[in-house]
């Protein structure tokens, strides 16, 4: 199945989403742009993002992640409700997994978000991860920018149900919530690496269940540990992610009844104020755009490399050397030599 689009069509969608007033046409244009980016990847995104980038930077981006069934969608719906009541424009990207066997996907996050389907200030998009590891889809970063240019005040990104190491969300969100319901393991789970390290706010959802208070205590103990371990000369990415001086609060919630959701929102606000006051927001954004650029570069470099290796005549000389077992000619040495050529051409 081929994808049909023309540059004129893309342009007309971009013009529509730039409009201030909301309309059905504008929503449809937004939906179409997202479809184009999902199907076309960076090839299409490079026609769209440069035209809208100067409209971005307004939206607050909230990431919601956690194990499957921890209540991410239900809580997303509750959080969206509150922002909508405040008169804000809210957009949600809800990511669910693609089957590695059929390539199909069952996207069921909308089921939990029925209440505001018809609110003109609300936009939900279900997104299959299409095999991307890390908890998000390849298109997510680009789509966040499109939603930002669409004048969303709040963008909520709900990841696939994650395990321990699908942590890409912190490269996109201003504030990352990790949902961790009671009954999922002991305090050792809480000091493991990965998910627990990227958290800005812990949410112990399903607070009505047994073990919720124990879960809170375990997380607090883990945070006590973290505060008392000081690593000298910690210049790693961890420093940017953790933000010295911010101890992630642990909030109990009930996603079904909405209990404590206002408290959660207060803490999201506090976190965003903290980022702004301390200047960490800038560090996070620098970090975020470095990752964004690396992803784009990876795509286009791989494409270039493949083109060059498979079409450039000069490569054949190198290949011949490998085949004839010439001194110093093996796949690694030759790749090193090719890298040198690349560096000379593009980075010197």
């Amino acid at each position, binding site marked *: 199945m081929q*994808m049909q689009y023309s540059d004129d069509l893309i342009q007309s969608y971009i013009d529509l989403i730039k409009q201030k007033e909301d309309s059905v046409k504008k929503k449809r244009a937004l939906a*179409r742009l997202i479809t184009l980016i999902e199907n076309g990847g960076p090839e299409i995104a490079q026609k769209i993002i440069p035209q809208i980038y100067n409209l971005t930077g307004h939206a607050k981006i909230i990431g919601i992640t956690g194990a499957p069934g921890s209540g991410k969608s239900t809580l997303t719906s509750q959080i969206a409700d509150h922002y909508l009541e405040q008169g804000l424009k809210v957009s949600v990207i809800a990511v669910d997994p693609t089957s590695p066997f059929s390539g199909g996907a069952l996207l069921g996050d909308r089921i939990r978000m029925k209440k505001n389907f018809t609110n003109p200030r609300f936009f939900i998009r279900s997104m*299959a991860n299409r095999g991307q590891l890390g908890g998000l889809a390849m298109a997510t970063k680009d789509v966040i920018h499109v939603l930002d240019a669409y004048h969303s005040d709040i963008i909520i990104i709900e990841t696939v149900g994650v395990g321990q190491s699908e942590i890409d969300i912190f490269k996109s969100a201003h504030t990352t919530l990790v949902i961790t319901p009671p009954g999922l393991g002991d305090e050792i789970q809480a000091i493991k690496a990965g998910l627990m390290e990227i958290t800005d706010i812990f949410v112990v959802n399903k607070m009505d269940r047994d073990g919720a208070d124990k879960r809170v205590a375990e997380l607090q103990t883990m945070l006590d540990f973290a505060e008392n371990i000081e690593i000298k000369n910690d210049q790693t990415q961890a420093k940017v992610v953790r933000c010295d001086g911010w101890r992630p609060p642990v909030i109990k919630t009930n996603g079904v009844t909405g209990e404590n959701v206002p408290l959660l929102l207060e803490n999201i606000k506090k976190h965003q104020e903290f980022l702004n006051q301390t200047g960490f927001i800038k560090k996070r954004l620098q970090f975020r755009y470095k990752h964004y650029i690396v992803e784009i570069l990876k795509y286009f470099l791989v494409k270039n490399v493949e083109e060059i290796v498979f079409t450039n005549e000069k490569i054949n000389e190198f290949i011949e050397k490998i085949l004839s077992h010439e001194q110093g000619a093996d796949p690694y040495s030759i790749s090193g030599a090719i890298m040198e050529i690349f560096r000379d051409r593009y980075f010197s």
Partner: protein
Amino acid sequence: MERKIRLIVAKPGLDGHDRGAKVIARGLRDAGFEVIYTGLHQTPDDIVQSVIQEDPDALLLSILSGAHPVLFPEITKKLHENGVDDVLVLGGGIIPEEDVPALKEAGVSEVFGPGTKIQEIADYIRANLKR
């Protein structure tokens, strides 16, 4: 450029029987489609909004309560009013044969009853996409 086919499976009205819709959603997932299931008790407006936002290639409506002569045309009318004319609309569930011509007249492309093979629906969708 490859593109994935996206579908919405929706249950309009008060009918609470969604086993069929779930089987269809799951089966079409296995046939390689991206299937958005929106859950029970959807109003025509809810469904139209989901279609606008999710930009699917086809909308699959399932109903077992007998309300299809009212709800299906209501949905196709609202889709048209919102400028959505390139989405294939299919019906399923318990739908008497004598009702089918009127539904087709209203813009439902095909109706699939009990016993339909998933493969048949998958083939029909692939062969009849409107874009």
